[in-house]
């Protein structure tokens, strides 16, 4: 009798286990029954999240967003979409230094793939070869130049455009009597820097250039963005000469890179010495927003920080106008770099149709209004008529209209190049541990060892 009782107990335990295990199994199965393309298990997780509210029709989609700063706007869009179509969209935002590709790989291993997720460029897309849905048939694909296309088809949905150039404080340049349009070559820059440097106290400047090289948290600024100018500045959008050279075993064009190195040396000469080696991104943007630097070596994304986190100091400095000049390290370079910083891709085994429909909806007027006016994006779609209030939006549009933009290709650099190699060399160059020729030589060697090993 006792034994029977024990057996019953054990049986009950096993059954409750089965019920738990079955719970996960059924919800995954449920999504596969709903989405004809076969479930990825994501249906179960999105339905169980609190924001789901149980109102979804069971055909929800999940989007992994790499820009945490626009989380609120995307959630608003998701809600609008749900009200309109009844499809629930789950927004999962990551950012602030999280390795998104690493997390996504974890999701993949756990069969917990989102239906739409962010990809940063060639190397990211290469990870997912054969796993992404082709969207070339979508209506939006013919409305933009910025979609990501590879041999799998049109796999990347562009949502914004960012620019890399030497950002400047227009008010200070005007007071100093420097016309940004004249900054077309290294000599012009040297003269202008010297002139502004002489008037530093008068203009309330700490330094002429906010150039930061700290290698632990800010390697991406020097290693990716400043370096990107060597790869692309002045070239037409489809010109990949120097990128191809780099991809071929990490080679650098010595003549061009030497000129680039001289320009970096010029930036260092007029940089803020107390922060050049170990300052943080926050300090860099705050000082620029407070009007303490005339130039800053960051791209258009700092506009969002200036008008939110640093809004108080920016207002105190008079909400000055900003602009961008090319990194003209060689005479004749007259382009800034603009590109989609990342794309949204649709997972092939996810809820493909619903995901495609949502992306198409994002290009409609009402969705673009939120993306542009509230999230501050610069729309990559030709049909969009909104202009963001972001301080840099007008500059980017001007350069685009004048055709003076280059693409950027650093997203295709070998992974880890900036973080593990070049960022550190920029940091070594800054305090004068090596001269310009030494910098060029070390860079050549370091790039070669990155691509070689």
């Amino acid at each position: 009798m006792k034994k029977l009782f024990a057996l019953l107990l054990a049986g009950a335990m096993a059954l409750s286990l089965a019920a738990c295990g079955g719970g996960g199994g059924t919800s995954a199965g449920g999504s596969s029954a709903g989405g004809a393309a076969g479930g990825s298990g994501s249906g179960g997780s999105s339905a169980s999240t609190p924001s789901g509210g149980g109102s979804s029709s069971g055909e929800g989609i999940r989007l992994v967003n790499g820009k945490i700063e626009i989380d609120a706007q995307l959630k608003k869009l998701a809600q609008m979409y749900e009200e309109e179509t009844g499809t629930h969209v789950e927004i999962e935002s990551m950012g602030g230094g999280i390795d998104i590709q690493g997390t996504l790989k974890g999701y993949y291993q756990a069969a917990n793939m989102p239906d739409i997720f962010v990809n940063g460029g060639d190397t990211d897309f290469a990870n997912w070869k054969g796993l992404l849905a082709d969207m070339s048939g979508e209506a939006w694909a013919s409305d933009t130049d910025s979609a990501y296309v590879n041999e799998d088809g049109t796999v990347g949905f562009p949502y914004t455009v960012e620019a890399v150039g030497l950002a400047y404080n227009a008010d200070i340049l005007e007071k100093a009597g420097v016309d940004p349009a004249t900054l077309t070559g290294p000599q012009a820059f040297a003269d202008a820097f010297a002139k502004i440097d002489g008037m530093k106290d008068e203009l309330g400047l700490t330094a002429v250039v906010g150039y930061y090289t700290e290698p632990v948290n800010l390697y991406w600024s020097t290693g990716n963005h400043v370096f990107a100018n060597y790869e692309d500045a002045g070239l037409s959008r489809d010109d990949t000469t120097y990128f191809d050279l780099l991809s071929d075993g990490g080679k650098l064009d010595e003549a061009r890179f030497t000129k680039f190195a001289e320009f970096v040396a010029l930036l260092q000469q007029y940089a803020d010495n107390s922060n050049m080696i170990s300052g943080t991104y926050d300090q860099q943007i705050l000082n620029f927003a407070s009007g303490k630097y005339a130039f800053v070596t960051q791209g258009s994304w700092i506009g969002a920080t200036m008008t939110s986190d640093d809004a108080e100091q920016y207002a105190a400095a008079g909400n000055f106008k900003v602009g961008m000049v090319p990194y003209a390290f060689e005479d004749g370079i007259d382009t800034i770099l603009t590109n989609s910083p990342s794309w949204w891709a649709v997972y092939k085994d996810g809820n493909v149709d619903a995901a495609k429909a949502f992306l198409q909806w994002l290009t409609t007027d009402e969705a673009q209004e939120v993306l542009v006016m509230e999230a501050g994006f610069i729309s990559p779609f030709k049909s969009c008529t909104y202009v963001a209030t972001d301080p840099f939006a007008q500059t980017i549009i001007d350069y685009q209209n004048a055709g003076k933009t280059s693409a950027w290709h650093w997203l295709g650099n070998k992974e880890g190049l900036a973080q593990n190699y070049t960022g550190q060399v920029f940091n070594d160059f800054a305090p004068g541990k090596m001269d310009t020729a030494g910098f060029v030589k070390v860079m050549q060697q370091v790039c070669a060892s990155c691509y070689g090993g």
Partner: protein
Amino acid sequence: MESSGTGRKLLSLVLLIGGAALLVGSLALDFMGNRASYRGPMLVIGVACFLAGLYLFPTLTRHKDIINFLFLIPLLFTFAVTVIIPLCLGIFYSMTDWTGIQYTKFVGLGNYITMFKEVSFLWSLIITVLFVLFNMILVNLVGFALALLCTSRLKGVGFFRAAYFLPNLIGGIVLGYVWQFVFNNVLIQLSSNGVSLLSNTPTAFAAIIVVYIWQYAGYIMLIYVNGLVTVPGDVLEAAAIDGANAFTTLIRIKIPMIASTITICTFLTLTSAFKQFDVNMALTNGTGSVQDFMGQYLTNGTQMLALNIYNTAISKNSYALGQAKAVLFFIILACVSLIQVRVSNKKEVEM
């Protein structure tokens, strides 16, 4: 009796065979990529039936063995799932071109050869060994000194014990960022040339050691305190009567009495220093340059082994190569642990 015996035998066989069939069936379904929702229950019921069949198996001589095995199953299963299977998978992946998502071919020992040809990896190996040596000595010295202080008759000893132990309760990442701020924004004001300690490889390496000691010495101190208070009072009293001064008591009485504690602490610091990752990552993330090491300019001056593995896999996206390094890491640590067990056993015999 006879009929119930055959009935039981029959039931047991049915359960065993049925359970095994369900188990194999559900696994086969899974491997074939079938997403049917009944896979989970099928698996669990299969296992339950199989176990029940084992339990009911009509044997008197082996019954005890079967029961023992049944009780071991949860542990064996957990051990297999969390240790054995990942280890085998890891070793397998280290011999492929795995990207973290999929692999296309088997490369044999290729990753291991690449690994030893990589100068930056050799550098990481060397500085890890250096780091371990420095820390084994310094953490134990500092920890022991603090323990002596905290077992003396000073006022407020309880407070000091807690205060020294406190840094150990803070996570390494937080600690790393706190100290990064200290080095980059506070100490820089005091230095004459305005260069942060973290921007030069030797000083950055020293900085990691300092932070690590700060974090870990309190923990080691607690263990030493525990050892020191177990030294019998009568032995100390006898030494005092014999005219031994404090120093002699320390060298001749206390240290020999806590020899086993010293062994434990040495190995604790050894393995934990070897596995150092979080402080390293938060403080310098392996940056720092080396002008010329085996003819190369290195940019991973302070990158220790664990961080090197992480960066190889995650930031350089070479999962297979990182996996190969991790296997080597495992072998080294396993050797250290085996030696530790050996030494500890020997000591116990002597005592």
